């Protein structure tokens, strides 16, 4: 850490110059207001209309805080709270173990297939609802492939998916790409001269990584790790899949969605989740305060890539393959499932067929089209907002600018079903001239997706901007460039990697979102892939076709991700050539 501070400081602008860029211009003020209005309209107000119940007395609706007292007095909630904290923290640790080698090897060494690995390492994030879970159980469950074989051969089983440790394992597999993608973007952005300086001073190997490289990539790591923490803390799908109910997010979900019982505790838990998410982000911001991670030199393609010695490369390939095999197992299982006739209590399916793809082929077209449209618009909205918020928070001194960051981050903690109900409540009454409610338009789904995935893009953009030295902007402004021109010509191009990382994360995860979508979809013609999947996965006969749709979703997102990696690579090569 100390290395980072000194290394970074060497290039940091002197304090006296700072005031040049930190005062807010009218344009920045307008931007902040615009974002605030957007967040208020599509996040704060709709969610507020639902979770205000947390502060009211059941029956009378009078204001009260007694529900929070009840929360603190209920053993189940307290147990759930600490379980959630433990699982989230441990998930960050395990996810880091998966992500660090992949990120390091692919960015630091000349490694064939680095781009492919980056793409593949990203796939676990795209776990289609329901089928992903079934595939995971068929592989790692008590009677999954691995345990059936272990039991046959050695007479024991490994409880991969039991209890809290099972949740940690699955969450780490699922969300480690957050760390991978942000850390890789950060590693690519490190100034090569830092490393060379350290090498000249005699540092090398692991010490070089520990003292110089990793600390300089800290913004990316923190961005990813804090996302993993908050996301795991707020995730309800995985614990419920593993039948772990004593964690906070599943408790909130079970209570919000119980039929006929007016229970304020579900909303109380939602408020607790929101507060915890903001707290976690605040702590991670505190941890970074007082350190400067910006480096001046840009566009050189990041760290110098070293050629590996043969034994090194063998170890590296071995490690990468092992990790990929582990984290991609669910997708391999999904693929098998989509071709399987029957797969039940056996290591592998009984037989294979193409019939499932035949069944979904006709109707999947409209789902694919909708998914692409919705997820790309949502991703675009997210990177625009994410870049703008990051810029306002890091480069201006507007009062309360952090609140934009925190409000956007709070979206992580809001169960999709709450957001969906909030949208119906807020926008169904608003009618278009011909009488159709606003909430029935597909754009509502897009907005819900954008809000739900905004935190991902925001963290990526934030980390990218943190690594850029203010002195570059100051130089541009000193040469007469306006603020807008500086942003357009200097900041945005330098942030490109981070922005793209943000877009890809938002896009990919939006493509498989279900909970808010299920509330808002109004007709089959407007439905995305996840909804089609849901419709199939409610019957035994639908498992195969559901898996086929899941594979289509994963392939779709993988192709888009691969394409964007290609674009990054090309633009970096072009820059390198231009120098």
């Amino acid at each position: 850490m100390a290395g980072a501070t000194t290394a970074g400081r060497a290039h940091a602008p002197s304090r006296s110059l700072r005031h040049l860029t930190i005062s807010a211009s009218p344009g920045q003020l307008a931007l902040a207001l615009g974002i605030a209005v957007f967040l208020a309209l599509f996040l704060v107000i709709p969610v507020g209309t639902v979770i205000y119940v947390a502060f009211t007395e059941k029956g009378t609706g009078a204001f009260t805080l007694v529900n929070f007292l009840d929360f603190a007095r209920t053993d189940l909630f307290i147990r759930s709270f600490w379980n959630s904290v433990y699982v989230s923290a441990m998930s960050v640790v395990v996810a880091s173990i998966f992500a660090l080698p992949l990120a390091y090897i692919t960015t630091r060494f000349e490694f064939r297939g680095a781009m492919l690995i980056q793409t593949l390492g990203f796939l676990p994030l795209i776990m289609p609802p329901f089928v992903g879970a079934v595939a995971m159980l068929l592989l790692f469950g008590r009677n999954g492939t691995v345990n059936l074989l272990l039991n046959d051969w050695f007479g024991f089983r490994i409880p991969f998916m039991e209890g809290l440790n099972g949740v940690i394992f699955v969450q780490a597999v699922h969300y480690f790409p957050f760390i991978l993608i942000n850390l890789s973007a950060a590693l690519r952005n490190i100034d090569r001269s830092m490393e060379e300086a350290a090498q000249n001073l005699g540092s090398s190997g692991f010490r070089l990584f520990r003292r110089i490289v990793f600390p300089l990539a800290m913004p990316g790591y923190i961005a990813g790790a804090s996302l993993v923490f908050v996301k795991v803390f707020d995730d309800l799908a995985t614990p419920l899949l593993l039948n772990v109910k004593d964690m906070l997010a599943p408790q909130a979900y079970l209570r919000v969605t119980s039929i006929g019982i007016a229970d304020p505790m579900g909303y109380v838990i939602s408020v607790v989740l929101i507060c915890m998410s903001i707290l976690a982000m605040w702590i991670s911001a505190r941890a970074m305060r007082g350190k400067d991670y910006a480096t001046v030199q840009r566009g050189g393609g990041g760290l110098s890539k070293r050629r590996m010695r043969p034994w090194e490369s063998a170890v590296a390939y071995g490690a990468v393959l092992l990790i990929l095999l582990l984290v991609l197992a669910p997708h391999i299982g999904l693929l098998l499932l989509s071709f399987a006739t029957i797969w039940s209590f056996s290591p592998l399916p009984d037989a294979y067929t193409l019939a499932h793809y035949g069944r979904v082929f006709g109707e999947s077209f409209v789902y694919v089209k909708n998914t692409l449209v919705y997820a790309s618009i949502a991703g675009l909205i997210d990177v625009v907002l994410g870049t703008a918020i990051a810029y306002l928070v890091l480069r201006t001194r507007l009062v309360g600018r952090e609140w934009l960051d925190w409000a956007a981050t709070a979206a992580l903690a809001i169960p999709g079903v709450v957001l969906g109900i909030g949208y119906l409540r807020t926008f169904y009454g608003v009618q278009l001239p011909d009488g159709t409610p606003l909430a029935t338009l597909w754009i509502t789904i897009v907005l819900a997706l954008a809000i739900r995935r905004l935190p991902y893009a925001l963290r990526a953009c934030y980390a990218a901007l943190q690594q850029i030295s203010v002195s570059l902007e100051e130089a541009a402004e000193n040469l007469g460039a306006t603020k807008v021109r500086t942003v357009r010509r200097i900041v945005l191009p330098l942030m490109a990697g981070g922005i793209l990382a943000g877009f890809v994360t938002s896009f990919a995860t939006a493509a498989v979102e279900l909970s808010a979508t299920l509330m808002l979809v109004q007709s089959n013609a407007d439905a995305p892939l996840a909804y089609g999947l849901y419709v199939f996965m409610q019957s035994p006969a639908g498992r195969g076709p559901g898996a086929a749709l899941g594979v289509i979703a994963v392939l779709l997102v993988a192709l888009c991700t691969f394409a964007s990696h290609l674009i990054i690579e090309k633009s970096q090569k072009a820059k390198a050539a231009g120098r």
Partner: protein
Amino acid sequence: MLRHSAAAAALIGAALFTGAAFAQSGKVTVVTSFSKDVTDPFKQAFEKAHPGVTLDVQNRNTNAGVKFVEETKANNQIDVFWASAPDAFEVLKGKGLLQQYKPKAEGIPEKIGSYPINDPQGFYSGFAASGYGIMWNDRYAKANDLPEPKDWQDLAKPVYFDHVAMAAPSRSGTTHLTIETILQGEGWDKGWRTLKEMSGNFRQITERSFGVPEAVNSGQVGFGIVIDFFAFSSQASGFPVKFVYPTVTTIVPANVAVVANAPNKAGAEAFVDYLVSPAGQEVLLEPSIRRLPVNPAVYAKAPADYPNPFKDPSLGARVKFDVDVSEKRSNVVDVLYDQTITFQLDALKAATKAIHDAEAALAKKDNAEAKALVKEARDLVAAMPITEEQAASPEIAGAFTGGKQKGARQAELEQQWAAFAKERYQQALAKSEQALKLAR
């Protein structure tokens, strides 16, 4: 001559019928929790019977469907609500979101099994029924040398420890009815004892109904307490599963209702009529759907081994079911189950396992003191924090629905009940471990 006039009458009738069909047109919007396998055949058949009408099916889980109808009532675009869980219909009815409608079908009896088919006030109508039973994965049972169960009580036997799954009654309206039937059939105290002995063997209590057949199909869990069509459609898809109706089972209806202020009221009523008409009832017999028609005459067209609740007394007729009793305490029963069983499953299972071990040891070497301890342990597990009268009292029911009078809050009751159960499970565990030592 007579034959000719009959034919003519049939023709005129047909003309009238199609005329009536033509009168309705446009789009009928249906919110349903049923899967594509169920809705697609009905959509095709209905659209064929009513040319010019399209059935727009919106799939939502029951809860999302209820919330959707509730949130959009000011500008309702939904014509029909179509789902299994009677409790969902009760909630909608209670909020005034359904429209009374009595279908024009004939020959549909009052009750199926012991459960009334239609809502007495006519807000929703049953169109199909299903029985509860036990489904198991044959490969799993063989690999673990587990016998085939025949009755609910079998599932409480030690061999099935950690092999059974069920959906939580608070999450599945049909499971709730099964629990309620056991409570009514065996009485409050004995009923809970049976439930806890069974639940002590559970591997999972899932939060959605379909989670159970899914776990059994993939072999993650051996045995599941499921609604019959899940098992039948799994068999039809080729999964190695078997199914049995216990000697006493519940029959639960699946319902349909016209939504209040339906934009296409005529179309909605036509759809409800179609579902209970002989043609609509026959669609239920398709292998991918396989639910029990509510029109007894339709069973004549069913395959030979098709279960018929109107003929077979074990299908529901043997149990009594009082709807009023059930309605008064439905939330209380759900929350009691969740607080004392679902969220305490680890503690309950530990106690159950210890009791099983102690009893196994006692079977080999008798010991009076140990026997008494095990009995105490069983009583501790079976103990419930509230009595039947308390469960139906307005003070406690009001804590869940938000009654105007001030009583204990839901969270307070939950905490009390959970603490009550947890403490007793721990005591039961200690006593059985003590018994095991004595019997060794």
